[in-house]
């Protein structure tokens, strides 16, 4: 099953690269720069999906006390941080082309950065908290608090940007570009699908790896 997923994902990734880098037309304003978007948008989507899974798995772990939910939350958080990092980097490149700055404190960017900090903290907590059930509970609590916090962060930054914006840094609304042609829409849809598959495969692998780690740890404890 996993190998099918990887083969399918690999084939789609090749097709996706062709579509986003060659086939889809350049944008009117952003010219070739628009191609970054076909990487940035799916990566951002996947990181939010990953953190949502952390949230759900954390709740399930705290209510059902089954270790597999803890492993799933942990695996999903690791991949989520990876994709959130890619989101920030690709977003910064895209911002340079679209808004002529590497960074601006617009609500979405600020929220993305805080999101990144929260889940880097989550991984640190995983590393430093006591091993076993107590550490797992700590992580689950943070997985819930952190996810609940994200919309509040977004809302508070948006409330702040009711102030006039500095010239040149532009707001999201002012510089929104349109996916003008159907080719662009198709490319975006395919790349979101491809990256979601990539995420599913990575999550699966990482989850199984965690299971094996746990199993070897149990065996070592039994023999010690």
């Amino acid at each position, binding site marked *: 099953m996993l190998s099918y997923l990887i083969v399918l994902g690999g084939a789609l990734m090749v097709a996706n690269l062709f579509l986003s880098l060659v086939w889809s037309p350049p944008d009117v304003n952003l010219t070739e720069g628009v191609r970054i978007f076909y990487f940035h948008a799916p990566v951002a989507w996947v990181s939010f999906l990953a953190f949502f899974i952390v949230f759900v798995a954390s709740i399930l772990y705290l209510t059902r006390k089954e270790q597999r939910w803890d492993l799933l939350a942990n695996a999903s958080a690791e991949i989520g941080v990876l994709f959130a990092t890619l989101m920030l980097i690709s977003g910064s490149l895209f911002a340079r082309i679209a808004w002529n700055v590497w960074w601006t404190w617009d609500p979405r960017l600020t929220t993305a950065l805080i999101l990144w900090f929260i889940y880097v*903290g989550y991984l640190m907590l995983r590393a430093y908290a006591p091993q076993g059930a107590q550490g797992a509970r700590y992580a689950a609590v943070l997985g819930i608090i952190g996810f609940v916090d994200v919309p509040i962060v977004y809302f508070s930054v948006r*409330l702040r940007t009711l102030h006039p914006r500095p010239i040149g840094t532009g707001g999201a609304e002012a510089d929104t570009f349109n996916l003008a042609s159907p080719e662009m829409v198709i490319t975006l849809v395919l790349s979101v699908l491809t990256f979601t598959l990539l995420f599913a495969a990575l999550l699966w692998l990482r989850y199984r790896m965690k299971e094996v780690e746990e199993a070897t740890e149990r065996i070592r404890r039994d023999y010690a």
Partner: protein
Amino acid sequence: MRALLSILWKDLLLEIRTKETVTPVLVFALLVVVIFDFALEPRRDLIVTVAPGVLWASITFAGVLGLSRTFTLEQERGGLQGLMLAPIGREVIYLGKFLSSFIFMLAVEAAILPVFSAIFNLPFFLPQVWVQAILATLGYAAVGTVFAAMSLNTRARDIMLPVLFFPIVVPVLMAAVEGTSAALRGESWSGALRWIQLTAAFDIIFTVLGAMTFGLVLKE
């Protein structure tokens, strides 16, 4: 309710007798204010614009320091063991610790504000600022109590508490700075109102979440 009050009373009594939390935190907060003042010295003209930020950055840094004390004191003297053995709900312990942290931080703020007003020569004694400060401190205490209990058994706890705490309280900090700025600019209540509402919503959400999850953090 009686259990809640006795936890609160115990913490206050301990603090009045030892002064081990409020005093060091207050000195630290004053130092941060002074350091900011030195750092901003070249641009005196900017003070009015940045003062609310300086004030709240100082309070946030001092707050995280105070929060880390709330449970280390308990742990050092075996008090936490006693609290957990007591026949009371974990959410009562949470609310007790939450309220005592809140009162300590508020005491520090009450001492800092006049000094701050004097150093930066700005009128910080405005009712809007106080309402904002009380609500923001409630939010800090609500989130901080959970994370302080969490970092208690965590390696590198001195770093873990701020690393967990700061990103989560970003909305509160932002609201406090904006609300204070609005008040300093002489805007009426309406300018600060949306920030007060935001902070109040944050307080409610995270006090409920804190009370719900605290027992899971404390469980051995």
